[in-house]
């Protein structure tokens, strides 16, 4: 686990998006995920990650 710090040595700004093969991930859009989850009556799984 990395404690988040603005002093992170390898902080990046733009990062390649890695999509899981088997799971239909929505990228960087909580409002869309929330809307879909309400409509489909499903919980939202959220992964917060960093490219460094």
């Amino acid at each position, binding site marked *: 686990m990395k404690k988040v710090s603005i002093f992170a040595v*390898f902080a990046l700004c733009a990062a390649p998006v890695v999509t899981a093969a088997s799971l239909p991930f929505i990228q960087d859009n*909580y409002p869309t995920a929330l809307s879909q989850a309400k409509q489909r009556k499903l919980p939202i799984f959220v992964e917060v*990650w*960093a*490219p460094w």
Partner: protein
Amino acid sequence: MRDLLDHADLARYAGQFVWLDLNYDTPENRAFLEKFGAEATPTFFVVDPQDEQVTAMQPGAMSLTELTQFLDRGASGVFAKKQTPADAELKRGDALLAHQPADAAKAYKEAIHMAPATWPQRELAEASLVQALQDSSQWQPCAETAATEAAPMKRDEIFARTVVAGLWCLTSTDPAPWSDAALRKLEPLAEEALSLSATVRDHRDAIYRTLMYISVNHNDKTEAGKFGDRWLAELDAIKPNSDDERSALDIARVENVQIFGDPTRILPALRASERAMPDNYNASLRLAQMESAAKHYDEAIAACDRGLARAPGANGRAWLLRTKAQVLTIKGQTAEARRALEEALQAAQAIPNKGSRDMSIKRIQMALGQSAGGNKM
């Protein structure tokens, strides 16, 4: 951890959740991060969309077993018609953990207190309690609770997580009788965790690094070196399956050497990674920093230049140029260093994330000021 989400065993969960990936650095995700909190990466949440309440929250990497249990727990928090009081307190603790860890610790304690001895979530709640004590900077209760609760636990991922959190709390304080006593209990448990195949790489990394920090704090560099060598040997034995994994291994190597060790020990691996990932400027940046630490200044500058040719984006460009300027300054090439810093400043002004932009600009301006004053950057 990212590779784990590709695991075939998770396919059965595909239709049971809406899946969301949030990059910590993407400005559009600020609102979520501020609302739900995330002080570490990775951090995982299950959110009930009806009231936007967190039903499960976990900072840090998980094994496949832990992840499936986490998904089950999160879904149960959304769908279960009636939860036991202990389950409800556990869920409340998870909802509080990000923003109010001291209150989360109280909720976890209450869950443990009210649950029957056979409660299946007991060890999870104990691990979460230690995490909450760590997150609320309660170092002594954290380390002592970890030592007490981990000892009788089943030897699995939750056990390793508990030991890791306890060790981090010991690194956050100066040596004292209470911390030495906790260390005497936790260190053998850490060795047990390292002997388990279930202990994920992030936890192994944390165990070795915390033991190194603690050894350095006790002025025992020999012991720090031994832990460092053990971890580097393990890292060298891992064959990365992806660029993400290769990068993670290299970051672990660098962080290891930054605590204590010889940077030349890891240069071959970093050089190999730079060759293996020809589009990855971070691989060049890591190499440049370690070449510099090894006093290979010309090689460090060359690595910066290779990174700059790898389309690094504004943040990466600013970082590479600042690193190059530091090395040029050490070499006494102050005019070239200043030019690199001026280019770095220009790049930093284009960083989209305000926090990263402000911090980068501040650091470059500070270096420019020192450069004008003739001081070392």
